[in-house]
Structure formats: structure tokens, C-alpha cells
């Protein structure tokens, strides 16, 4: 199992937090590590490679109820 820290930047960070707090599906499980008004660090547990994990996190939020309306940026954070 791989563990990544993915940084989320979004002006509506509460929606990111609500979505990813203890999120789990067939590919990833996430928890929030640290958060401020526009930034969230997600700890992602997954079997995916770093690039795929990043794309997957972005896609899954983009397709969520509120994610489709929000402007956000994701990047892999080195631990």
C-alpha cells in the first residue's frame, strides 16, 4: 500500500474537507492531515502510482456534487 500527501488548494476548502474526510472507494482512502482557509493536505492510501493517484483524486472530486463547480488545484507534496 502506498501513502501519499496530496495538497489541495481551493477557495471553498470546507467542501474539500467534507468530501475527503474519511473517504474510501475501491482505489483510495483518504484523511485530512492539515487544513487552513484555502489549503488541505490529504493523506492518501492507495495501490496506485503517484501520477495515477493524483489524477484519480482530481477526477473523483471533479465529478462530485460540488467539485464540478469549484476551482481547485492538486499537487503531490513530498513528505
Amino acid at each position: 500500500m502506498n501513502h501519499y500527501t496530496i495538497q489541495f488548494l481551493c477557495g471553498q476548502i470546507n467542501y474539500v474537507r467534507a468530501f475527503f474526510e474519511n473517504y474510501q472507494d475501491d482505489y483510495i482512502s483518504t484523511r485530512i492531515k492539515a487544513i487552513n482557509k484555502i489549503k488541505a493536505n490529504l493523506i492518501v492510501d492507495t495501490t496506485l502510482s503517484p501520477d495515477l493517484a493524483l489524477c484519480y483524486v482530481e477526477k473523483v472530486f471533479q465529478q462530485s456534487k460540488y467539485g464540478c463547480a469549484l476551482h481547485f488545484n492538486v499537487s503531490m507534496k513530498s513528505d
Partner: protein
Amino acid sequence: MGFMAAFEKFAEKTLVPVAAKLNSQRHIVAIRDAFILSFPITLAGSLIVLLNFAVLAPDGFIAKILFLHKLFPNLADLQSVFSPVLNGSVNILSMFIVFLVARNMAISLKADELLSGLTGLSVFFIIYPPYTNVDGANFLTTQWVGAQGLFVALIVGLLVGELFSKLSKSKRLQINMPDSVPPAVSRSFKVLFPIIIITVLFAIVNALINAIYPDGLHGFIYAAIQTPLKSLGTNIVSLVILAIVSNLLWVFGIHGPNTIAAIREAMFAEANLENLNFVAEHGTAWGAPYPVTWAINDAFANYGGSGMTLGLLIAIFIVAKRQDYRDIGKLSIAPGIFNINEPVIFGLPVVLNPILIVPFILVPAINIIIGYVAIVSGLIPPIAYSVPWTTPGPLIAFLGTGGNYIALLLGFVCLAVSTLVYLPFVIAANKANAVAYGEQKSDSDVSA
């Protein structure tokens, strides 16, 4: 700060759900995505017009700079080679749109998207004005396959997409073939009855409408819906309001351009195409019929990205004393030249910044008005050519007007204006408390 906190709360509780509804509502998404998917084709048409009149024409601005007609005396003969690109792009945009809208509707309703799109195209021509026979040959008017047929295309695409998706799921209407039948045959037979029902239904509707309104459905919808909406769109007040709304949403973390995309396309698409057709016929943007289109925003109010953030970056280099601001400025300038501004939006940040929100919304509005005044006063022609949005700012104005140097100069004037407006706000933001964003030194879970 009380007002800002209250507005943030309002944005979070009210604006985001509304924006989410707009960005996920299947009809709006179908329309938005149809225009996005067809954009490369219309851009190809625009670039060909630019090629024809900027490079191949003897008085083209690129031809004059490079002395092309001295090197290649018969260069203008090539214009007839490239002109047909318009016949396969902007002149038939309604056909692309009806197919794509019906297709997108089927995708969201999980039906057969290809056959839904084809049915939409079929219905578009079922309700089309009939053939005219001239000397034994049948001719079809091209009036409604381009810009003027856009609304009919949207309505037909939406209706066909809905009907097809619902009818194709009815088990009683499905013809199921044995497994030995090839998949393509099986697929087309499965939706045979829904397609027959839809095509016959629209034929009946068309006959009824023609009996009441002799100009036909196209003429009716063009007069009743498209023309009023076009008038609403092609005035400066609508343009400024739309730009303000888009940038306001942006600065509160909502994707402004995506949220307003369907409305923007519905209001401005025909005007953009009519301007391009004007250039194709007359070889110049001077006198193009619609001075006010969304292209003014791209040409004068979007350098560096939404909020005219290139002006912000220049202001940072001039007055910012904070090292983090200057570092972000250096990181952001390269993508900013190509109108990508994520580094500065989230880096400074601009999003949710109570000081920078003011110029972020104000500067584009000011520059749109500057561009508008220049066009209506006859200083520069309308922005008639479509230019990729990643083109460096002032070049959009230059290329969009077909090589007008005053437009290029005006672009730099707008950049200077935006820098001047941003200057005092950058100074104020420099002095603002860095902990306004709840920056924490530890890694513990802390809410903002």
C-alpha cells in the same frame, strides 16, 4: 472584515450550491460541452480567415511585414484553396451543435450517444425549410445551418436527447437481436422504434407549426428567442455584468468561466460567427456588425488570466516589499504570459483575499469599457477573429482585429491601467496580516 466574513459565508452556503447546480444540470452541461467540443473547428475556420487576409492577401499585415507578395507574386491565388474551410466549420456550426447536444444528453442519461446524436441531426433537417427546385435541381438554403440556426439546434438537440434517452430505455420499444448478430446491427435495431417515433413526431410538429407560422420553426425561433437573446448579449452592460459575475465567482473559489459558459455561448455565439463571416466576405474587421462580443473581454481584460492578473504581477514587481510576494511573482510570470494564473491565484493568494478581490473584479470591467469605447468610437475595428485564449494578452487584440496596431497599443494601455489600479491594493495587501489565512506551523488537524 465582518462584511468579508459574511460574504464568504454567503458564498459557501448559497453561491456554491447554485454554481454546483448550474455545473451539473444536464441540459446546461450538454450545451456547454457542445460548444467546447466544437470550438477547435470554429477556431480552425477563424485561423483560416486570418491566414487568407493576413498572409495571402496583398494588403495583409503579415504579408506586408514579410514582403510575401514580392517573394511569391501569385500568393493571393491560394485564398480560394483555403476558403472552403469555412464551409466545413463555422458555416455549418448548427449541425455540429445539434449532434453534440443530443449526444451529450444521451451520455448523461446513459443512452446510446452516437445514435442520439444522429437522430438529432436527422430531426434538424426534418424541420428544416424544404428544398427549392431550380431548373430541375433541388437546393437547400444554407441560412439556418450556421449561426442563425443555433437556437433551433440547441432546442432540437435537447428535446431529441431527452426523448431518445427515455424511449430507448423502454423494453417494449426495444428490438433485441440474437447474440449471433453483429454488434453494430444489434445496436441500431435496438433503438429503431424510438428513432421512428421521434422522427415522425417532429414531422407532425413541423407540419403544425408551418400551418400556423409560414416562416417555419427556424424563422419563429430566430425571431422569438435568438434575436432578443442576441440583443441582450451584444450590449456593453450585459458584457460587463457577465465579466463581473465570472470574476466574483472566481475569487470565491468557484469556477466562474465554467459556470457562465452556457449563458455566455447562448448570448454571444451568433454574434461571433456573424463577425467572422463579415471578415470572410469583406476581408476586413472594419464594419463588422457586432462591436460588442465576449471577445472584448479576451482581447483587453484577461491578460494573465481572469482578473487581468498580469497587471497584478507587474504591480508586485514594482512595489511589493514582501519576499514571498516577489517569489510568487517570479514563479507566476511565465505561465501568466500565456494567461494561466493558478500560481498567483492560490499562491498570494488572490482567492478569498479581501484586499485583492476589489481590483480583481474592477480591473477587467474598466478594461472592457476601454475596449468598448475604442471600438464604438472607430479607433479600432471590432474583435472579429477568434484567437486561442492562451495567446499572450495584447496579441489577442492585435490578431483579433486582423492586425490593427492601434489595438495592439491599446492592449498595452489596458495593461498599464490594470497595473496602476493594482498598485495601491498590492501595497495594502503587503501590510495585511499573513495569518489571515490561518497559516499553522504544526501538522495537527486545525480548522480555519
